[in-house]
């Protein structure tokens, strides 16, 4: 720096003060001569104020975006309501399927991507676009009953004297698993639907089947 900053600042402030004086004298003369010059310039809030307001708005938007993002990422219910997606985690990937039918009258079609060896579809049933049932069985008289139902109509009852309840996760959803020595009953909610499995098979197997439920959007 090849000049004295302190001295230069004083010099410029002095020049500024003198220019302000000239400008104010000119303004006063105009008023005294009868020219009604307004005191304030039109739309004349200084840029500093605009900048501050703009910066505040940007900060508020950024905070809202972050909060919404956190809510969507961390709360399944919000995610489902906002995006209306059905999520099913697969090894190495998560399938995200839009729950388009939730807005319509049709129950979405589902498929089980995993079934224990020997099981096959035995029967299906559907009730007035409220529920759909699928029963799978094998040659050893073991069965799995799957139900997809609109949550507002789903109202089961479980005998908790004999069945033990556990809270588990099916992919991103919280689920309730009731089990005894012979049977398992698994139920969870995804969006507007409740999904359940009931069968005389072990917990590990029923959880694996449940984790591999996909919506068939075709």
């Amino acid at each position, binding site marked *: 720096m090849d000049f004295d900053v302190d001295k230069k600042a004083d010099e410029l402030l002095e020049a500024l003060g003198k220019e302000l004086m000239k400008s104010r004298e000119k*303004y006063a003369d105009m008023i005294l001569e009868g020219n*009604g010059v307004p005191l304030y310039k039109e739309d004349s809030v200084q840029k500093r104020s605009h900048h501050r307001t703009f910066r505040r708005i940007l900060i508020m938007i950024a905070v809202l975006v972050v909060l919404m993002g956190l809510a969507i990422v961390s709360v399944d219910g919000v995610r489902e309501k906002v995006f209306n997606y059905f999520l099913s985690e697969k090894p190495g990937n998560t399938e995200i399927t839009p729950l388009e039918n939730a807005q319509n009258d049709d129950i979405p079609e589902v498929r089980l991507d995993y079934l224990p060896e020997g099981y096959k579809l035995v029967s299906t049933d559907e009730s007035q676009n409220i529920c759909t049932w699928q029963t799978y069985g094998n040659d050893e008289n073991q069965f799995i009953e799957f139900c997809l139902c609109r949550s507002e109509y789903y109202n089961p009852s479980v005998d908790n004297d004999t069945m033990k309840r556990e809270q588990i996760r099916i992919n991103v959803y919280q689920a309730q698993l009731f089990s005894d020595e012979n049977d398992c009953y698994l139920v969870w909610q995804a969006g507007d639907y409740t999904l359940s499995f009931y069968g005389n098979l072990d917990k590990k197997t029923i959880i694996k089947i449940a984790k591999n439920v996909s919506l068939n959007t075709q």
Partner: protein
Amino acid sequence: MSEDARNKIIELIEKKYGKLIRHIAYEIVGDYHLTQDVQQEVLWQFVSKHADKFELPPKEMKNYLCAAVRNTALNMAVKAQKINEAEQAELNLRMLNMDELDVMAFQDEYGYGLEVHELLRKLDSLDKDILCLRYGAGYDIHEISPIVGIGEEAVRKRIYRAKIRMQSILIERSDV
């Protein structure tokens, strides 16, 4: 100074500059009666505290009145609850027609037009009043304080901040 002498001075200033005082005051308070009050207050302050300035050259007198009337009107508008303190601060941020400067003149004369322009953007009208009185008219801090209606320490701080800002701008520009 006798009461008669004071009244005479007030009468003369009112006759010569009354239009200017009322114009600025009314634009701020928007009320005829309060405008009258502002005018009386400014003139009373002038004769009681700055009677020595009665012989000021007209251009200095106009400058004095521009600063004194605007600040007195703002302070009285707050007292009369016409505006609140936030609105007062907002009004201080609005550009005044009396502060319309030719920034390029600084460029031509000092080679620092952009720097002065940048400083002006960071100053409110009260800062400009103080700089105008301090550097333009050469008033002392204890003289500026009653004109703009804030304490001497506050005036000193505003001058100091303006100077620091000017220095910062100069340093930043010289580094670029």
